[in-house]
């Protein structure tokens, strides 16, 4: 799925970066799908890593993930925590390996007592010295801060920044991204610090650094502080206080509200959705310095997206949640779980229509995004009706490509603030009248 869009205009500058950015010009824009590929690559390596604890490059054929699947009771065991664009499971092998998975399904259903033991690599069965080796440290800290997830969070923040109707400021952009990234690292580290015994009991999370004793809790907390404090300071002083405040609030919301709430009430899902919605808002406020309707719209889109994404995933993890003591809708209120997922799929359509009304995008956006929004809503409806493993998986995997696609389409349909000048003329609003231009 690599394609390049080329819109007619004059004099474009492409900012070389893996994420989609553009320098603002009303004319020639060259947008690449590096963003999408970047995500795809990350999904694959993370997925393989979860299953086999070995990072595999994307070029591997579909057969290799399947081999890993045989070792684990994959369907029952992949645990997930809700997060902005939460922890990833790759969509690549979904279609082709699904048939193969079906054969495994019956055998694998409740073999949980055997599967984890079989799956552990040899090195896991040995006693290890609890001594920190300096060359292991970067890898350990990367896993502690959930670096791939952090990267996705930063990319949603970048999307927020890119959608803001102001001239693109590269310094501001970099500072905002760095600050958001550091804040996300801090939040993730504290989350892992709080959840050690629970992580040990769930298959996906049992190889985290604190669970394996690779670092001490003290080091984890120190690392979190040394990321969080500079991160927030960078946002507050280098960007603007509003973004800094949002960043600090998000850390607090994630670590002190969402993490404990996961074990107390199903309301944690809604809190988690807010946590996921804040980074794009932060990106927007970093660019404009104020909380506009557009920022809230972007936040709203991400908020709504969380529900089909997470609810579909949690459907397959009910056993782990039940045993681990996590209060999730899929376990306690399954009907609500599916209803909410469907509701928010439909909300995405609504929000896409609101975008041009708020002058964030042109009217092309709701039209172009309608097919994908309808598709995810259809899958949401199927999930609501069928309430089974296959419909939940379909919905989950759809959500994985739906969001980057939606953001990309949104970006290409972005209303340049120079366009508005033309629009004013086209509507014949009068020649003598001053045209409204949004100033940063």
């Amino acid at each position, binding site marked *: 799925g690599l394609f390049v869009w080329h819109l007619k205009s004059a004099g474009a500058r492409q900012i070389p970066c893996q994420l989609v950015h553009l320098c603002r010009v009303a004319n020639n824009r060259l947008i690449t799908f590096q963003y999408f590929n970047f995500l795809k690559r990350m999904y694959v390596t993370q997925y393989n890593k979860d299953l086999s604890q070995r990072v595999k490059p994307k070029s591997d054929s579909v057969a290799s993930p399947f081999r890993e699947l045989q070792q684990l009771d994959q369907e029952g065991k992949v645990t997930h925590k809700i997060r902005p664009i939460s922890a990833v499971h790759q969509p690549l092998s979904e279609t082709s390996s699904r048939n193969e998975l079906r054969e495994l399904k019956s055998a694998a259903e*409740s073999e949980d007592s055997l599967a984890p033991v079989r799956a552990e690599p040899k090195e896991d069965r040995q*006693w290890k010295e*609890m001594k920190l080796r300096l060359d292991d440290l970067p890898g350990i800290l990367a896993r502690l801060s959930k670096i791939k997830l952090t990267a996705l969070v930063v990319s949603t923040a970048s999307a927020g920044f890119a959608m803001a109707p102001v001239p693109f400021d590269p310094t501001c952009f970099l500072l905002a991204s760095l600050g958001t990234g550091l804040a996300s690292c801090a939040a993730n580290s504290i989350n892992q610090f709080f959840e050690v015994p629970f992580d040990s009991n769930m298959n996906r999370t049992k190889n985290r650094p604190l669970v394996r004793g690779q670092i001490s809790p*003290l080091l984890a907390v120190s690392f979190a502080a040394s990321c969080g404090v500079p991160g927030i300071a960078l946002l507050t002083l280098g960007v603007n206080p509003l973004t800094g405040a949002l960043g600090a609030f998000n850390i607090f919301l994630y670590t002190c509200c969402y993490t404990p709430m996961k074990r107390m009430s199903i309301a944690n899902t809604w809190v988690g959705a807010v946590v996921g919605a804040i980074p794009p808002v932060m990106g927007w406020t970093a660019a404009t310095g104020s909380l506009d309707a557009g920022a809230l719209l972007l936040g709203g889109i991400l908020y709504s997206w969380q529900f089909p994404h997470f609810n579909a995933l949690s459907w*397959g993890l009910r056993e782990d949640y*039940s045993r681990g003591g996590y*209060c999730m809708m899929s376990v306690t209120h399954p009907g609500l779980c599916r209803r909410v997922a469907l509701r928010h799929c439909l909300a995405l359509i609504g929000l896409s229509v609101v975008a041009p009304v708020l002058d964030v995008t042109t009217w092309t956006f709701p039209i172009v995004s309608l097919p994908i929004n309808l598709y995810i809503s259809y899958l949401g409806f199927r999930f609501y009706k069928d309430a*089974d493993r296959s419909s939940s998986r379909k919905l989950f995997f759809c959500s994985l490509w739906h969001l980057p696609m939606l953001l990309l389409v949104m970006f290409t349909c972005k209303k340049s603030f120079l366009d508005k000048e033309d629009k004013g003329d086209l509507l014949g609003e009068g020649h003598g009248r001053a045209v409204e231009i949004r100033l940063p």
Partner: protein
Amino acid sequence: PPAHSRNDWIGPPDKHSNLRPIIFYVPPEESPLERRLREARQESQACDQRFWARHNRAFRQEKEEFIYSRLKAKGLEMRDETGQKATLNAEEMADFYKDFLSKNFRKHMQYNRDWYKRNFTITFLMGQVALARTLRWLRWKKKNVGN
């Protein structure tokens, strides 16, 4: 762990609790603060081990009972012709999961509170020990430099 090692050692996950046991190294010149830390960690480990081993065992047992009763209601045997254990699919198990979660809710609440308290205490003690060790090292350094 080898006898000459001066570090703690962490082992593979326990079969019942899924937690990794730690064998703590007791240095000969252990200070009272360090001993407090070690004992707190040992106690916490024992506490967690007790809780999760019992909890997971209960889960497995109740799950077996549930499967058995459901299979019986359907008129099926525990093992089919090939000798394979008969299982229920995820939808049928959903009732059990919901039930189990609500039954153990209060137990989890209590454990959560306890775990957070222990975690903070131990981490705080670790901080104190680290600070004490750093000060001791600095004093030793100063003494050596002086000589």
